[in-house]
């Protein structure tokens, strides 16, 4: 009879090539939910289960494991999971037992690695999906490790025994908790990397040079300008217009619209500072273009040198101050003036007091 049942199991496995359904005097769907859903299981009482079994519930076992833990010893946690399995798995269906044992051995290898390989602990962490329980909808099996067709364990209402369901689900819940716990460092490291990148984007948007539609396109497709998910490290300037003031010796200062034809900016790794230059044309009020160069220094602004009549002589030169730079200079000269006034006022007061 037993052999016939196993033959049926084997045939089913080979027929669907995947999850092995475990046929026996089975649990009800309600019992499946009670044993395999961590929330529902946690609400079960000592009266329902008896003290010995209640003590072995995943939540209780985990609580004891955490209390007993004086240092990070993942191998010891793996041993506790294995001990729970050994206690619960006596007499259960052997198909499930073998697959579960293989999963526990794979997990133990990873837990050993957590103890011995800091890079694995920090960057990867253990595999949680091996013990992930997929809740079946009505008519479907509940499956552990659904992602591996040759390593998954199916639990079927009205077919799988209560002992098997309990051993598999309780151990899976605990093993997954251990995996989640063991992955905390690696997940925290992921978050640090993401937070640093978010800060770089924020810096780029707040402190970087604005992007026009054309520049957004060009810089987007510039392969060497940035790496995956990162803001640009090198920024191309193309046909970018900015308000400036052309400062001249000979004919007086003029406001000018300056168009940067092409240029390039370089950012530091945090994207908080950049510098660069662009070839530009200034168009002052008198409507004659002046070619020249514009230097960018981060948020301070742009400083340019252009020449009237295409003659590169000192008397034809204009010094271009971007609006940002102009405001910057104004602010500082204002502050200096205020300081000077304050000092003068102080001296006057002092003189008055002396007199």
């Amino acid at each position, binding site marked *: 009879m037993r052999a016939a049942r196993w033959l049926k199991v084997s045939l089913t496995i080979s027929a669907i090539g995947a999850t092995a359904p475990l046929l026996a005097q089975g649990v009800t769907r309600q019992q499946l939910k009670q044993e395999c*859903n*961590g*929330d529902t299981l*946690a609400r079960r009482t000592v009266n329902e289960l008896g003290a010995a079994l209640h003590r072995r519930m995943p*939540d209780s076992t985990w609580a004891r494991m955490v209390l007993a833990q004086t240092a990070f010893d993942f191998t010891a946690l793996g041993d506790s999971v294995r001990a729970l399995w050994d206690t619960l798995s006596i007499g259960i269906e052997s198909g499930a037992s073998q697959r579960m044992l293989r999963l526990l051995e794979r997990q133990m290898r990873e837990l050993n690695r957590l103890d011995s390989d800091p890079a694995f602990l920090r*960057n*990867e*962490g253990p*595999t*949680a*999906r091996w013990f*992930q*329980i997929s*809740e079946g*909808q*009505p008519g479907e099996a509940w499956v552990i490790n*659904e*992602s*591996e067709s040759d390593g998954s364990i199916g639990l079927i209402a009205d077919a799988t025994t209560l002992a098997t369901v309990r051993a598999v689900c309780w151990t899976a*819940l*605990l093993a997954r*908790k251990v995996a*989640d716990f063991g*992955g905390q460092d*690696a*997940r925290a*490291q*992921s*978050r640090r*990397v*993401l937070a640093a990148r*978010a800060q770089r*984007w924020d810096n780029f*948007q707040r402190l970087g040079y*604005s*992007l*026009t*539609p054309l520049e*957004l*396109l060009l810089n*987007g*497709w510039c392969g060497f300008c*940035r790496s*995956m*998910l990162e*803001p*640009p490290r090198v920024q191309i300037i193309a*046909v*970018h*217009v900015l*308000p400036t003031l052309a400062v001249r010796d000979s004919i007086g200062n003029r*406001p*000018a*619209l300056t*168009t940067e*034809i092409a240029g390039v900016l370089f950012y530091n790794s945090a994207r908080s500072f950049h510098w660069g230059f662009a070839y530009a044309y200034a*168009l*002052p*009020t008198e409507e004659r273009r002046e070619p020249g160069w514009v230097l960018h220094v981060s948020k301070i602004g742009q400083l340019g040198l252009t020449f009237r009549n295409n003659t590169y002589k000192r008397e034809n030169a204009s010094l271009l101050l971007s*609006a940002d730079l102009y405001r910057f200079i104004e602010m500082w000269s204002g502050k200096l003036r205020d300081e000077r006034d304050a000092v003068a006022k102080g001296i006057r007061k002092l003189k008055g007091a002396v007199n």
Partner: protein
Amino acid sequence: MPKLLFVVHGMGDNLPGWSTDLVDFLDVALSQYAPFDVEEHPFRDRVKVEEICYDPVFDKTIEPWGREREKLEQFARDNGIKLDDTLTELAVGQLPHATTGFVWETLLDPVLYRGSPIVHDNVRQVVIKQFIDAWDDHLRSTPGAAQLDVSILCHSQGTIVMSDVLAIVGEARLPEFVPFSAEKRSIECLMTLANVSRLGPTPLIDIDSLSTCVRPQSAPAWKDGKVNYLKRFINARHKFDPFCFFQRFTAPANWGNKYRLIDDIDHIHQANTHGYTHYLANPRVHIPFFRAVVGAEISEAQEQEAIAAFPPILPPECAAAVATLKQQLAAIRDGPFQANKGLDEWVTKGISFFKAVKEAVNACSSLVEGIADD
């Protein structure tokens, strides 16, 4: 098991907090069915909802252009500088006058996403950070040994964004994603409404949504020796939502029984057939969603009853306007579409869609427009 649901918005204006109405709607939808009908918040009491919000990236990209143009024109006016110089005209002309309205705030989002890798990487980074931070927070706070089930509901442009993000994280395309990758973890259910993840000219699509790990575990492995990321994938497509027909997401037949396409929905309860909640109003859509995400045991009989009771047109007095709207939407859906000009076509057809919606509402004023839902 604690359920964590990420909700992802589509095109259009979506500020932080956008998901409040959606969650209210899901509460009402679930409370139609026993035994949830006696509860006030049957949905939010069972599922922790985390909203994903990436629209500010588009706003931060587009809005400065309008301001910049205004500033330049003002400067030119104040100082008597003419803007008709060829070079200046070229430089200023590329900046839009205004960046509001249906085209700028809605239709151009996918165009910018596909057209500029800076925009799509910025969006992806923002979404990945929200996704991973929330996922990790919930993993840490899940009590005892309870297992956290993670699902995702996304709509329209959100389907492009989440397909890309899940591929990047699931395949660990950067080393920092390994702890959240398909090798380590899995996603319970991905539900896409109006899936447009294949939109755009092929050269601009850097992640092909049919070739990644974002497929159910019943599908062939996305790569030899690798595992798929999803346990379930549900994809709903409304017959009169032309957007998801242009460059249709069609999963191969061998994706197995954990991929479900819901394509038999054709109700019109508002003129905007592309709307998020318009999709979810239909029991053919929300019942599979509640079963997969909440674990709601809604029986077959309840489902059939709900489908039978669901009116195909609301309000009934707008039947004539709806008939015309259907004709227009079918013409947009079935008209020629040049895939190599996918984004131009998207905008052109999007404007036609917008006009059809407006005409329908003008023809029957009690028909809800629903554009704001988008």
